[in-house]
């Protein structure tokens, strides 16, 4: 155990430096884009004079030299202050916290469902390789993988919302309905079905293909033959012997993709009008809302670092031959 504790603490110390370096890099990245928030707001107002733009630049602190802006930003970041969005007139932290629940409920649900469904389908396909069920799963998986995600979203809306009228097409709740308790939960869940399905289908396709390929490699290895020779029941061979050895690549990819959880899905949140972080990020890019964008980048980088660490830990749990080394 102390070994693991040492591993985690060392990784966390490194992580702090990585995140800070990322923050500096991001700062220059967002400032490299042409134009600034003042230009965007002048463009949106449809009228401007020199004073208007100058006032905005002053208010946003953009009239200061870049290194000074960087200094101000970094000194705030180390105090865990993500800054203030002048455009939205709110602290960045509050903006992120407003949007986080929507994105997390969307992406986490989609991620978990996709992982479970993908591994199950992939296993099924691999164990019956060459049969019609394998072909069916592979074809569906390939289609889901290759189809643009927004198009699937629109088609699902057309079918289930416009034509059949079963599910709401967008939003997170029925606005103005005033539901409470159980009713409110059901209402929200109903609104999540289409976006989660749309997003989940893509990830599920990825995991299905990975699991299938990985199992095909493992299932003919000697230790599987030994297990069969011992007369173990098939479900035990699949779940303990094959899957446990085949799942590592899936964990690797899932670990990467967990980093997307915060970024959410810009497309899904746009098509389904969900007020999540992905959309916030997209709009912040277009509006050059530097503080908001940097806040989202920072949050995302923290999540990625944490999930990398978790992935490493899970490796050693799944496969004791892999040791954690500081």
């Amino acid at each position, binding site marked *: 155990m102390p070994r693991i504790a040492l591993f985690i603490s060392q990784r966390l110390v490194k992580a702090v430096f990585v995140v800070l370096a990322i923050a500096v890099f991001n700062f220059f990245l967002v400032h490299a884009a*042409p134009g600034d*928030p003042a230009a965007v707001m002048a463009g949106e107002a449809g009228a401007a004079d020199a004073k208007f733009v100058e006032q905005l630049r002053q208010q946003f602190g953009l009239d200061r030299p870049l290194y000074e802006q960087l200094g101000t930003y970094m000194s705030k970041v180390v105090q865990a202050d993500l800054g203030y969005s002048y455009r939205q007139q709110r602290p960045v932290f509050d903006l992120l916290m407003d949007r986080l629940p929507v994105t997390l409920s969307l992406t986490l649900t989609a991620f978990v469902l996709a992982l479970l469904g993908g591994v199950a389908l992939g296993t099924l396909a691999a164990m019956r390789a060459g049969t019609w069920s394998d072909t069916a799963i592979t074809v569906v998986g390939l289609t889901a993988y290759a189809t643009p995600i927004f198009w699937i979203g*629109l088609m699902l809306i057309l079918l289930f919302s416009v034509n059949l009228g079963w599910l709401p097409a967008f939003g*997170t709740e029925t606005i103005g309905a005033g539901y409470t308790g159980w009713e409110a939960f059901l209402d929200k869940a109903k609104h999540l079905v289409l976006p989660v399905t749309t997003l989940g289908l893509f990830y599920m396709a990825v995991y299905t293909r990975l699991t299938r390929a990985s199992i095909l490699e493992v299932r003919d290895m000697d230790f599987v033959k030994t297990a069969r020779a011992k007369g173990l029941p098939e479900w035990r061979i699949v779940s303990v012997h094959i899957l446990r050895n085949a799942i590592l690549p899936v964990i690797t990819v899932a670990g990467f993709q967990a980093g997307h959880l915060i970024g959410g899905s810009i497309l899904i949140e746009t098509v389904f*009008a969900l007020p999540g972080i992905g959309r916030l990020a997209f709009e912040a890019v*277009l509006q050059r809302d530097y503080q908001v964008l940097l806040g989202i980048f920072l949050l995302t980088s923290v999540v990625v670092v944490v999930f990398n660490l978790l992935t490493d830990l899970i490796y050693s749990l799944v496969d004791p031959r892999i040791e954690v080394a500081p």
Partner: protein
Amino acid sequence: MSNRLRHFRQTLTAAALAAALAAPLALTVPGVAVAQERGGTMNIIVQPEPPILVLGLNQQGPTQTVAGKIYQGLLTFGFDLTPQPELAESWEVSPDGKVYTFKLVKNAKWHDGKPFTAHDVVFSTSKFLMETHPRARATFSKCEKIEALDDYTVRFTLKEPFGPFLQAFEVSSAPMMPKHIYEGTDFKANPANATPIGTGPFKFKEWNKGSYIHLVRNDEYWKAGKPYLDDIYFRVIPDAASRAVAVEQGTVQQTQFNDIETFDVPRLKGLPNVEMTTKGYEFFAPLSWIEINTRNKPLDDKRFRQAMMHAIDRKFIRDKIWFGLGRPATGPVNSVTRFHESNVRKYDFDPKKAEALLEEAGYKKGSDGTRAKVRLLVMPYGETWTRLGEYVKQAMKRVGVDVTLETTDAAGWVNRVSNWDYDLSFNFVYQYGDPALGVSRTYISDNIRKGVMFSNTMGYSNPEVDQLFAQAAQTNKDEERRQLYSAAQKILVEDVPVAWLLEMEFPTFVDKRFKNAVTTAIGVNESYDSVYMVKK
């Protein structure tokens, strides 16, 4: 992909139509008098989401539509742009055109219960808007004195007559701001900005960012018995296809401006539950054009610009790219506003004339058939402008001019155009009901200001035009102004500082149960105090 999509929707539309035909006819017969009863909720699309709702601080289009229900101006304007009373019940102009006296309504109250008085008007026009509002700053800086004669009378004394002074009191041009909340504070950082306080028929209730803005009926509204609606939800729906679905399903009861992509308009027009109108934009009367950087070769040559006018088929653009919305423009002043002159040089679509002009200007065809090369920075405001860019490239190719399309996003576009780093681009600007407010700014040489968007970014300079616009603004005699503006328009159309494309029209879709949505020249930005819902 889009074919399948369209097919689905056609099926759907047909089914909905059949259902509507079977429904009782009474609902769709126009002109049937129905009692204006209280009640009803209206869902209106708002896109993009406004950054804040304090109209004095932000005048983006969507902000105006939402905040126009919360804040009010002294005047509003009929379809023919004649002033109508709002917070001012009457007004007088002195014979020399320098003194304007407004009598205010006496029973108007701010949403927090404080009375609305002449002191609020003086504060708004001489302090608040002077600090925050570029257009208001330009107008009210022409005032020598702004004073409250008593609690309900305000007098503006101008340094010299200014023709369109009354137009400056429209709600987005000069929204009245509460003095008791803002005086002595930093207007932009005032915490009260999160909960806007106006005099309008609807009060701010809740803003779920990224999702909706909720306004509720102001029970203390100063017009007795109004408004009729209980509340209005402004719904943020960022995807254009989803917005169209929202109209089809009846989730929203109104869309305006660019909410619906032009290619969706013909389909939605056929829906049984909504009505489309293009009225209600007369005050803005946008005009679109190809912005031409006249500093760069070959665009500095008038004949080259004239050739562009002949090479581009404005009727095609209207019919095939804007799906019938708008009118081909003939010059710098929109024909629905005042002082439009139609007797100007005509540029019919004629590639031969264009080629002749190019020959004359010395742009001969090279061995590859190309006469000249220019860059076109496509305006990043949606699919339609991208299509327009592709069309212009083709049309210019036909007369031997090679156009390279460049793309960027909104920030990059403003940055490059305002800093004159472009050859050609697109633009459209509002005319605000009068050439002195919305037209002259594009063409006068005083307004060549680097880094400022919507100024004379073309670098066009003609002392004669400067003189005519200056004279026309400084008189309030309509006949005199008409002559001066006519002369200016004739010169401009000859010079082609920009290549005018369309007098733009926007489609407003309103659910048929809701009446009185569009009643003035500011249309959807109106207060909606007389909008009511017909219940079955």
